[in-house]
């Protein structure tokens, strides 16, 4: 089976979970002998991937007028955040400074135009698109080839914006979800959001929960000795974008409450985002300056180091469509406290859980984890054991079933 996949990021070119999710899915599918052509806005010269045929629309044929679509659009940006992102994350990401477009919507139009050429030239049985930036490309490809369209939704615009969607984006999201033959949601949480926000019928949406790549060599490395905390401090970790969606302010509020009960607790905020300055100020204001450390955006081995130096990983997300990071934490032998407003909390049993807004409950559970060694031991052991359940094959298997179903729909 051949799949034409439209995505926006693919490691190492990525800024968040979407890229990892696409790569992991592609790897799982490829292990089951699915051929994938993966289209994304920008692929550096000479870059290749073992599991997919990577096409950067920047490397398209001459008759396509725009040679590079080096969009700075990341799935997590809205127009307002565009210029900030341009100045921070993306320069670091690609090491290039002068190739980005000026308007995020313009970028998508160029990408979608490129889809026409690819959809005509490539050979495939099914079209699979990842999140709203690629939906138009998918719709175009379907109209050209008549092949079934599977729209994957990793996060809705409502998740990203805390319920204040950008109209253009949510419209694009809606169009793609409507045009798709089958929608894949990465959790029941996301499925419910899609049903609520866009009135998509339940029967049209299949849920595929994510797994993690066990081959990742970092999981087998011990970084504990590299921890800066040498005096037995208890370390509580926040790791993710410091944006409204991820609930960093609830984390800081909870930290204040924990501090009164566990004086030697340390809090690490790993990540960057528009709320970072405010969080730094807030921590200072609450008298946490010496106990809350802000590491900035982490990648690669540093992510695993952060997990391993932590006693507990807290994911206080306001709206977390899945939350792959929680599985990475478990795999690193660090137990988790998850917000109930997350997809991952549906499938993980051995975790502490709380509503994100209930900072008393959040603090209560953090304190218990830090103060009661038996809880920490059982939770760590069981959550590590449970992490083995989440591999790349199960999501791939389910996705292939969905491809087959979609192909049957389209005769």
């Amino acid at each position, binding site marked *: 089976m051949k799949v034409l996949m439209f995505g926006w990021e693919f490691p190492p070119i990525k800024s968040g979970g979407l890229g990892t999710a696409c790569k992991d899915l592609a790897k799982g599918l490829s292990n089951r002998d699915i051929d994938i052509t993966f289209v994304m806005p920008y692929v550096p010269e000479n870059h290749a991937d073992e599991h997919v045929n990577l096409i950067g629309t920047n490397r398209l044929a001459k008759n396509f007028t725009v040679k590079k679509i080096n969009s700075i659009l990341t799935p997590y940006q809205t127009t307002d955040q565009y210029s900030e992102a341009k100045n921070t994350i993306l320069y670091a990401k690609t090491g290039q400074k002068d190739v980005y477009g000026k308007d995020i919507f313009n970028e998508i139009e160029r990408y979608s135009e490129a889809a026409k050429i690819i959809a005509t030239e490539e050979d495939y049985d099914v079209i699979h698109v990842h999140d709203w930036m690629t939906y138009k490309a998918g719709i175009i490809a379907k109209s050209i080839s008549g092949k079934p369209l599977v729209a994957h939704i990793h996060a809705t615009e409502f998740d990203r914006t805390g319920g204040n969607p950008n109209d253009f984006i949510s419209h694009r999201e809606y169009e793609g979800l409507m045009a798709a033959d089958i929608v894949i949601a990465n959790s029941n949480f996301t499925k419910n959001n899609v049903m609520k926000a866009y009135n998509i019928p339940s029967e049209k949406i299949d849920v595929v929960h994510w797994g993690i790549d066990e081959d990742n060599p970092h999981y087998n490395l011990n970084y504990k000795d590299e921890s800066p905390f040498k005096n037995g401090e208890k370390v509580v970790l926040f790791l993710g974008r410091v944006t409204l969606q991820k609930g960093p302010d609830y984390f800081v509020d909870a930290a204040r409450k924990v501090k009164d009960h566990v004086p030697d607790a340390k809090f690490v905020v790993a990540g960057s985002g528009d709320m970072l300055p405010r969080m730094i100020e807030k921590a200072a204001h609450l008298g946490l300056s010496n106990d809350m450390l802000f590491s900035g955006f982490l990648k690669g081995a540093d992510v695993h180091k952060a997990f391993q130096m932590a006693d507990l990983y807290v994911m206080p997300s306001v709206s977390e469509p899945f939350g792959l990071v929680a599985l990475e934490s478990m795999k690193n032998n660090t137990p988790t406290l998850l917000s109930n407003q997350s997809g991952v909390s549906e499938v993980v049993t051995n975790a502490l859980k709380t509503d994100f807004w209930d900072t008393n409950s959040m603090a209560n*559970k953090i304190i218990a984890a830090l103060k009661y060694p038996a809880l920490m031991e059982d939770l760590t052991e069981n959550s590590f054991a449970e992490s083995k359940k989440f591999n790349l094959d199960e999501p791939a298997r389910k996705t292939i079933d969905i491809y087959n179903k979609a192909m049957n729909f389209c005769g």
Partner: protein
Amino acid sequence: MVDICFYFQVHQPYRLRQYSVFDIGNNHNYFDEEKNREICLKVARKCYLPTNLVMLELLKRHPDFKISYSISGVALEQFEEYAPDVLESFKELVKTGRVEILSETYYHSLAYLYSKEEFIEQVEKHKKLVKRLFNVTPTVFRNTELIYNNEIAKFIEGMGYKAIISEGLDNALGWRSPNFVYRPYTTDKIKLLMKNYRLSDDIAFRFSNKGWAEWPLTVEKFTQWANAVNGSGEIINLFMDYETFGEHQWEDTGIFEFLRHLPNEFLKHPDNGFVTPTEAARKFNAHDVVDIHNLSSWADIERDLSAWLGNKMQQSSIKELYIVEKLVKEANDKKLLDDWRKLTTSDHFYYMCTKWFADGDVHKYFNPYDSPYDSFIAFMNCLNDIILRLKEKDLKIEIKDN
């Protein structure tokens, strides 16, 4: 001839609320009164009241019909407070003279394993309550969750009981059948009644299971199986949770009809009858000696204690609970002692069980928490408040001494 010996377990714990670290030192409201009342009333409506009614009818209709109950002290307390009609209906049953009440720990606790002194006190407290409410004195003992071994049997014999109850453990019985009365290893007089788990579980667990080859279970079929014991056994010990009727097996499964007609069908055979545990101990000689060295229970497939004491949370929380036993008693504070004792109830430890994936659904039953971790956290926070109360007491004593 063969007799059926029915024993039904009746128990409701005082479930804890999500007592948080921020409650410690601020209030001592450990128990979720609303939820406990709600569950008590729900189970009363679905199980206790309708089943007691059926039992009373059966006792009136069949002069040979007999049953026994073990009702925990904390369940009786809750009936008194939340559902007095349930208590009245049990009293009415006992008044027939053919309903035996067994002895157990008042708080349905694991005290035997951690403090013999506390164990005896809880058994005596339960005995007093049973005497006050039913005007009878129990003579047969059943330990919480049928936790049993030789040593417990010996101890219970020392307390003057005529018989003790255990699971029908295959590895202890070997080729022998549970359908006889036995003598526990190293004891002199006490009799051992062992559960026929196959026939008990046919009713308690499999009754409504449509995937079971024997479904639907009719009274005729069950009686046939029971009659088959004739000649190779004397007694069929049918031990189960009373909540089997109407709660584990809902009314629409036909469980009440089954119960209503079983005695009539079973008594059609002239050699068949019913006995209570005390009667069984009197009527039947010990057939053989049964040696059970390791602690066992009636739970799960393992029939061990791992559902209560399997993980570190369970082990450490119960250990810390009993560490303060002496201080709690020295404090001479009735309310404090009662709060502490309500924490000894086995259910709190059951809720912390993490071996969910195999036996999950049974453990989740009536579990007031979303997770074993939350159960542990609430329990430990309560215990830490108790410790704080003890510290405050100590302070007062010091001041007095000075």
